[in-house]
């Protein structure tokens, strides 16, 4: 079902160069800190209830000793045709005119249908209220709401940073340009494997990289039109 409406707003997108990813998971840590992502503890994690807005998927190819490890950072793909959006009965997840797949926590009643219909399995559910061992709650980012029990959450492309970047550009009376908005994962990546920007602007780095012959999208054949572009590994 089509969600897109014509707009002259920025269309946020990310490019991830898999050749550069070492699987260090610094992006995961940065995301957790930036977005007040709760840690659930070992017991809950063993039940498969971790909350991750970004994860490094590890795939092993070949048999020992000829083994090759592949890493792929996966977060919400912010699909243009997001399967999670039409199935939510209360509009807790919807598409913004900036191409973001937004999640409104205080609309969510927790049917979990969105997560069941996400082919990328990037949505996390708050099965319990979280306990933040003191003094960790002092590290909360005041720009990001802390989620309560019973709601779904997922990567927002650091929407708080997007809003700040757009406000700055507006103050300076210009359009957003590369560098105005840097999500926490992109900022932290030690090998500079991640890029973020306005793909509607042909001069932006993500727009240029998205035309690379190495550019692919995850499960592209489903027609979800993801906004995360992966640059495949070369030989």
């Amino acid at each position, binding site marked *: *079902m089509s969600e897109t409406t014509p707009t002259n707003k920025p269309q946020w997108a990310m490019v991830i160069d898999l050749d550069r990813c070492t699987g260090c998971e610094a992006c995961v840590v940065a995301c957790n800190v930036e977005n007040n992502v709760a840690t659930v503890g070992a017991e*809950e994690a063993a*039940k*498969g*209830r*971790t909350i991750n807005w970004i*994860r490094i*998927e*590890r*795939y092993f190819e070949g048999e020992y000793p000829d083994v090759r490890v592949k890493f792929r950072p*996966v977060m919400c793909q912010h699909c243009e045709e997001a*399967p999670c959006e*039409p*199935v*939510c*009965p*209360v*509009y807790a997840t919807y598409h913004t005119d900036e191409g973001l797949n937004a999640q409104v926590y205080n*609309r*969510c*009643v*927790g*049917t*979990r*249908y969105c*997560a*069941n*219909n996400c*082919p*990328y*399995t990037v*949505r*996390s*559910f*708050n*099965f*319990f*209220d979280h306990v933040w061992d003191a003094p960790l709650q002092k590290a909360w980012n005041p720009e990001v709401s802390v989620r309560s*029990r*019973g*709601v*779904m959450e997922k990567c927002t492309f650091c929407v708080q940073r997007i809003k700040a970047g757009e406000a700055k550009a507006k103050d300076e009376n210009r359009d957003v340009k590369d560098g105005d908005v840097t999500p926490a994962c992109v900022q932290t990546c030690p090998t500079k494997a991640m890029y973020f920007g306005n793909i509607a602007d042909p001069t932006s780095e993500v727009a240029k990289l998205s035309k690379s012959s190495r550019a692919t999208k*995850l*499960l592209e054949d*489903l027609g979800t039109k993801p906004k995360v572009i992966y640059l495949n590994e070369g030989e």
Partner: protein
Amino acid sequence: MQNDKATNEKINDDLLRPLRQTGWAWRVTVVVCAIFLLAAVAAFAYQLQRGIGVWGINRPVFWAFDITNFVFWIGISHAGTLISAILRVTGAEWRRPITRCAEAITVFALMIGGIFPIIHLGKPMLFYWLAPYPNERGLWPNFRSPLMWDFFAINAYFTGSLIYLYLPLIPDLALVRDKATGWRKTIYAKLSLGWRGTQRQWHALEKAVQVMAVIIIPVAVSVHTIVSWDFAMAIQPMWHSTMFGPYFVAGAIFSGIAALILAMAVIRKVFHLENYLQPIHFNNLGLLLLTLSLLWFYFTFAEYLTTWYGNEPHEKVVFQSKISGAFAPLFWTMVVCCFVIPMPILAIKKLRSISGTVIASLTVLVGMWLERFLIIVPTLSQPRLTFNWGSYRPTIFEITIAVGTVAYFILLYAVFTKLFPIIAVWEYKEGLTVSPLPHPHHDPAGATIATAE
């Protein structure tokens, strides 16, 4: 004339006996069911207080027992529609003693099925946010969501079924009113809406019942089709199937008839209604169950064969896990319960007795519950990105709630049989006067009663 009057009194006496006398079996059933129901309420209270994490669901298996039970109970609710409405519309005379048993199953099964989408929410207290009403959020609900279609379909079906249960109950309520005394008389008088049995009232009632019978059939079909679309509208492997609508409707009627046969067998024994619910009724319902067992097998075979032949990698993974992988024991139990056991029992005339159909019905119910579980969990536990594969194991809370709702159903049904005649008295009597053309001796129920007197 004298004989007619005696028959009339005998029927009244037999069919209203459950309202007058309470046996030990009834009391034990009610107490046991109430205990299980309380346990389920306690489990839900704990879940409310602690969070839905007390269930075994996780990422990626976000739905499991909750939605399995939901689909199962909505399926059971299809007993009433098929038997009562279709048989009424087609004028099948043998339906007469079983219509009300069936209609009551529909109403109670819907009440129980409707519990699950509410209690499975992350925030159960906010379930009413699915209703379209002017609200402080300034939002209508999302009508593109299959869950919204569920909401409206189930509400429509419940309302229709309640009316369809109530209408044919009116003359019987009046009959009870005439025989009751004290406060009971007042209540039954109110419920019977001033029924006096005039020609005009009978005409209006028959018209209304006919209209409702015709309306309720497409509503019932739409309900389980929409329930199936919760899955079919999603893009997950082995959910996104065009034939889920008819597959689910057939499965629903299948399990509904099984539930009806069980209910009838219990009623027959407990209330000594052997002269009314006769082997012929179990035989006929058994034949229907046989038809649906074959239909179920055909649908399942077609669904799995096309998946296997299509060889699409993500679908194949889910397929293989059911046929020969982690879910194989459950899958083959399902096939045995839905087909291998019931089919021969129901196909061989000698075995299609009351106890035979009861055994077949029990296995069908187990099999159909497994079918719903096997549609939900294997798909969810094996998403496309293999890094996220998971598993599922129910906790004591989910099991308690599942068992408690079964108890709740039995409890509601038991109480219903105490308050209302479970066999439609007027409809049954009417059957004795009507000679079904062109074979005047074809009504076995009526014939047997006449000779028994």
